[in-house]
Each structure stands twice: as C-alpha cells, then as structure tokens.
C-alpha cells in the first residue's frame, strides 16, 4: 500500500496545460525523485498535491484518505510537509519564530518543544542563530531553516521543491546528505530537482517529467544509466 498515490492528474493555468494524466506513487520510507527540465511541471505537481493549485482531473490519495481538492492547510494537517522553492522563510521574524510558525498543524502543536529540540539537533547552526532575523541568514542557512520549519509540522511525507537551487556546491552536497538522513530517520520523501545526477543517486525510484507528462519511471540507478536520460539531462 503506497503512502501517496497520485493518479491521472490534469492541471491547467488558464488555457495552458501544465500537467496531463500524471500518475505516481510513493511507498512509505521511500525517496522518490521527479526530474525534468525547467518548466516540465515539477513544481506544479508538488503544488497540486499540496492543494495550492486545483486540479481539473485526477485523484490524490494519502494513506488511504482521498485528499483531492483539499485546501492546503488541511493537506498539512494530514501529514504532508512542503519545503517550497526558493527558501521562503519569513524574513523579519527570528529563526525561532520561523520554526514556531512551522508547528501550525494541530497534531504538531502539542509536540512543539520536542520538535524544536529535534530540529536544533539536526541543524546546530539554527540553534546558534535562534534570535537572528531569518532574512539575515546565508542562503544555505535559510534552506536549513525552511527544512527545519517544515519538520516542526511533524509531517510523514516531505515534498522538497528544488532544495539545491541557487546554493553553493558544497552546500548542495550538504542538502542531499540531509535529505538522505531524514529518510533514514523514517521520513518519506518526494524530491523535485533539476540536479538530475545527485537526486537520482539518492532516490530509490524516480520519474522523468517532460512537458507535463511522466515519460519514464524506474529505480534511480536504472534511470542514471538510461540512454535517454543520459542524453537529455546529463549531456553524455
């Protein structure tokens, strides 16, 4: 039984179709990557699952509950976390206030203290800077804060939207290590990335999204050695 089952999703922006007939599944404790070029519909897919965009067709089922058409805060309540693209921290709030804001889902409120300790344990840098305004952090620190804030909501599935975007190479490596670490700790992960090599390396399974359609599916390793992927995304 998959933790997340997405079937036959169509999404439009006005007349433009962003997703057509997209289906995928994620089993508990898996890392599933979605790779594809800019504009292929990767972010749209995450945002559709999260209920930020309304789909025209298709179903989203999480842990046997049909969440199609749910508003985004209800989707958070059921245990789906979302680390949005571009490190959207609250710039004028402190690190601590940002983290507290992450404990918004009902089930997370009672455990705020433990969650905070857990996050500070994962990212000691955030503990050091807890009183600092989030907008003054470096790009890598902001990304850690965005991830930490998401974890404060105690999700079972975390969807990462381009976590490596715009970060220095050393920090990018660190980001992928963090994703793997979270997975080893028991989280299920949906990873949307332009960094095809790195994400296929850590993913158990992956989908290739092109022009709003799933074109390929397979294990991370298999896709890494797939000719089409190598040609189109790795330039080999």
């Amino acid at each position, binding site marked *: 039984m998959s933790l997340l089952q997405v079937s036959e999703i169509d999404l439009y922006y006005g007349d433009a179709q962003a997703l057509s007939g997209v289906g995928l599944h994620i089993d508990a404790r898996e890392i599933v990557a979605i790779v594809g070029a800019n504009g292929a519909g990767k972010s749209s897919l995450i945002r559709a699952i*999260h209920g*930020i965009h309304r789909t025209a067709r298709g179903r989203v089922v999480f842990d046997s509950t049909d969440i199609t058409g749910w*508003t*985004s*805060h209800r*989707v*958070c*309540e059921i245990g789906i976390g*979302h*680390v*949005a693209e571009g490190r*959207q*921290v*609250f*710039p*004028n*709030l402190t690190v601590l206030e940002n983290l*507290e*804001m*992450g404990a*918004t*889902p009902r089930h997370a409120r009672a455990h705020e203290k433990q969650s905070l300790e857990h996050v500070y344990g994962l990212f000691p840098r955030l503990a050091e800077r807890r009183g600092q305004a989030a907008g003054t952090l470096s790009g890598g620190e902001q990304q850690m804060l965005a991830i930490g*804030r*998401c974890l404060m*909501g105690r999700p079972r599935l975390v969807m990462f939207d381009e976590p490596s975007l715009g970060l220095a190479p050393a920090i990018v490596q660190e980001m992928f290590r963090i994703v793997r670490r979270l997975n080893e700790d028991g989280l299920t992960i949906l990873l949307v990335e332009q960094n095809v090599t790195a994400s296929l390396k850590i993913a158990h399974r992956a989908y290739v999204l092109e022009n709003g359609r799933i074109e390929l599916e397979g294990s991370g390793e298999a896709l890494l050695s797939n000719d089409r992927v190598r040609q189109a995304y790795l330039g080999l």
Partner: protein
Amino acid sequence: MSRITPRVMGGLAILLALLLVAPALLGGYGLSVLILVLYFAYVGQAWNIMMGFAGQLSLGHALYAGLGGYMAAGLYFHYGIGPWAGMFVGVAAAVAAAAVVGYLGFRFSLAGVYFALLTIAFAEFTRIGFDNWPWTGESGGMFLRVERGVTDVANLRGGPVLFYYVILFLAVAAFVLCRLLLESRLGRYWLAIREDAEAAQAVGVPVLKCKMLAVTISAALTALAGVWNAFYYNNLFPETAFAMGRSIEITLAPIIGGLGTLFGPFVGAVVLTGLGEIFTAVGDKLDIPGIKQVFYGLALLVIVMYRPAGIWPWLAARLGIK
C-alpha cells in the same frame, strides 16, 4: 510581541484617566479636537487590522463606514429604531460587503495594489447606487433631526460630551481587542501572511480564512465608526460618505503613526489632527486660500520621508519601550 511593562501600563492608566476627565477640563473647541483625534485613532485602528496586521491594502474603507452609518441612520430616520439596535444592521451590512470584496479578491489571489483597486471600485459603485436609492434620500442626502439641549442616550442624541465618551469607549475597546488579536494564534497567522503569503500557505496557515477574518473584523469596527459619525454630524451624503478622500483619511493615522503597531493609530491621529488645527489657524492668519492643504501635504511628506516606519516605532525607541 513586546510585553506591556508596568511602566507602559502606568502611562496608559494616566492617559486613560486624563481622557476620562478631559470634558471637564477642556472647552468646546478643545473637546471637538479631541473627538476628532479619538475618531481617527479608532477608525485607523480598524483599518490597521487589515493592512498593518494582515498586510492587505484597502483603499475603500469608506464603504464600510458609509454602510454602517447609512443603515443605522436610515433605520432611525424611517422607523425610529435607535442606533444601539441599528448598529447591528450596519455592522452586518458592512461585514457582508467585506465578505464579498474579500472573497473576490483573496479567492482569485488579487494582491497589493490590484486588491486595493477592487476595494476602491466597490466603494465607488456603492456611492453611485446610494446616489439613486430613494430610501437613503439619494444624492440629496439624509438628515437626522437635531434638538438642542436634549440628551437621549438611547437614541444617541445629545451634545459633544456624549459623543466624546462613546468614541472614547470605542477607541479603548478597539485597542484592547487589537492587543488580544495580536497575541492570538490568528494574529501570528496574520503576521506570517504579511511576511510571505506563499510561505504561510506552505506551513499550513489557512490563508484564505485568515484574510477573510481580517477584512470582516476590520469592516465591522469601521461600520461602528460610521454609525457614530452619522449621529455626530447628523447628515449623510453618498458623495462624502463613500468618497475616496474619506477612505484615504482613514489610512493616514496608522501610516503616519506606525503600520501594524498598537499605538501607531493613536499617535498618528494626535499628530495629524494637531497639525491640521495648527495649519487651519495659520491659514486663517495668512489669508491665502488653500495654504492649509499645502502645509498639510508638506508635513505628511516630511514625516514619511524621515520616519518611513511611522512615528511610534521611533518614539517608542526614544522612550525606551520595546
């Protein structure tokens, strides 16, 4: 959120005590100025909930004040129903209008100036509607009967002292309400939305619901100001009740005083009303038509240039509060 320290509490208590005895100390002119200060502090506080707390710019708040005023005044004028009952109808009308404006704007993700344009549009076509609605007296206006020397609290008929205490009560109540709102979960969600609405949505803040609450609470409070205004001035015209200028003047005190702050609307109202009175006096002396507006405009420019975050944050730092 900064704590209210004993020192601030003491200052507030002294201020409140002074305001309570003010009618005994001030002459008619002084009282009328203080009434204006409290009115702008109150209505500014109401507007500040939307813009200062939740980050949603409304340039059409005259709509809510006008609806509140017209409903309560109309019920009194036509059926003799007093404003203490009529205000509920006024508030309901304003909340309904706010719900429509808010839903259209927020559901379809209009933000910033585009949302502001929507608020202006609603105020404008309501004005046109009221210009042609016989029940409101159309463009000729609606007038409430004035009987000199009669004080009738049940129907809110009386002199300046009565209106002074009503607006003082409203201003204090709004201040306390805003303080509670800022401390509440809803207040924190508004803060998140103001900071970054998309990020707020990503962490599970019910963005649409919180924005709707901001616009409807703000409209309800503004409607009460409209009821007070209608009975204080005893006349209503669509041309002024729903005017763009009325909407703008509601926004000035919180902007000058400090957006999103509790004390900003009051400080802004004191400064603006004070400047207005001074420039009126200077204008009369100089006897140059329109010079008051020029001075007033220049003063606003200077304040916004040198204190872009408003006077209160600067003043608070000076006083060692915060």
